[in-house]
């Protein structure tokens, strides 16, 4: 195994981790472990939210991570792989092979995720003390909004716009179906429907990064979460206010 190969492998692993929603501290930790296991000399790693540098002796790679999605299965599998590497269970060749497999894994099909978003909306509405008809309304809204968000992400619209539109759509569809006679309490339905879209992962990762002492990434992530949350709530709130105004307070 050449140093260059190890460096490329590490860069690929780091990129995959960061793109799939791994914490900055996890990326740093995983890469350090992998490199230290295979090579004893000098190496440095520096990771921020949007990219990282890896340096082994005279070689350095800079990796820029643009598109960040969430795929926790990949994060877990890479975590498992790095454990196996460190414990000596698998060699370099096997690790590369296994990583190729991990990279290919696609996760659940879109329709499953759409259905899950719908189910999750429905149950969150029940948790907010909504009735069964409220929950049915949220189910439909959740499915529609998730599908639209997925489509927008695929055409790589900016995150803020995607989330904002999601919020707008939630308010619009909920009000529409309320007018058609489904559901009893608009506020509860909207509150339930926005839950699957709140930035839970960003906040959790931000906290982990901050505890690890990485205030740069933690701060960036907190800001990311705040922007997402505000976009979502602002979309729903603005739309709802407009609808209420147009309907003369009948909604």
């Amino acid at each position, binding site marked *: 195994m050449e140093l260059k190969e190890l460096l490329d492998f590490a860069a690929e692993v780091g990129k995959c981790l960061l793109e799939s*929603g*791994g*914490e900055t501290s*996890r990326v740093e930790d995983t890469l350090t472990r992998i490199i230290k296991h295979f090579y004893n000399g000098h190496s440095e790693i520096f990771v921020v939210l949007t990219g990282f540098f890896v340096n082994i002796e005279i070689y350095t790679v800079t990796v820029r991570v643009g598109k960040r999605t*969430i*795929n*926790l*299965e*990949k*994060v*877990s*599998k890479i*975590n*498992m792989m790095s*454990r196996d590497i460190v414990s000596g269970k698998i060699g370099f060749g096997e690790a590369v092979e296994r990583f190729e497999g991990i990279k290919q894994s696609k*996760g*659940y099909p879109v329709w*499953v*995720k759409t259905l*899950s*978003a719908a*189910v*999750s909306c429905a*149950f*969150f509405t*029940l*948790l*907010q003390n909504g009735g069964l008809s409220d929950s049915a309304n949220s189910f439909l809204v959740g499915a529609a909004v*998730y599908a639209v968000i997925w489509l927008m992400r695929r055409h790589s619209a900016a995150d803020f716009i995607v989330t904002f539109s999601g919020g707008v759509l939630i308010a619009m569809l909920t009000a529409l179906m309320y007018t058609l006679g489904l559901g009893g309490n608009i*506020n*509860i339905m*909207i*509150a339930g429907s*926005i*839950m*699957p879209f*709140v930035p*839970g*992962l960003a*906040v*959790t*990762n931000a*906290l*982990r990064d*901050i*505890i690890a002492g990485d205030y740069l990434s933690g701060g960036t992530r907190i800001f990311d979460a705040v922007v997402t*949350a*505000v976009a*979502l*709530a*602002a979309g*729903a*709130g*603005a739309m*709802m*206010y407009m609808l209420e105004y147009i309907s003369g307070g009948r909604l």
Partner: protein
Amino acid sequence: MIFEMIAAFAAALAFAVIFDVSRSELIFCGLAGLAAEGIYQTAMLIGDRSGAVLISAAAVTAVSRIFANLRKTPVTVYLIAGIIPLVPGAGMYHTVFNIIASDYVKAMSVGIDTIKAASAIAIGIVLVFALPNRLFFKKIKK
């Protein structure tokens, strides 16, 4: 309360699917959500909301760490699904709605409530994360 716990279980499990959590871990994500809601409801009986959120967030972080050690999976997997029933999504929406509707007094009171709940979650998570990992290994081997 049983009903709420079941709803939280289903909601957390479905929420985990959106983030591509592997099939074998889904049930644990659901359990984390169930624990969060159960502890929150119990704590609500004796205290106020932010206290209940704090205790529940801390407890669910502990549960997630135990799961993580048992299943050799990153804590984040369970934690995200676990804390989601506690996240003040409704508060977020009402705050912004009231700001837009120019009802600033209400926006302020709902907004501060929301920030309080969000901070309570953050503090709860941080408190338990700061504990050494050994503590959670021992719990399993007992």
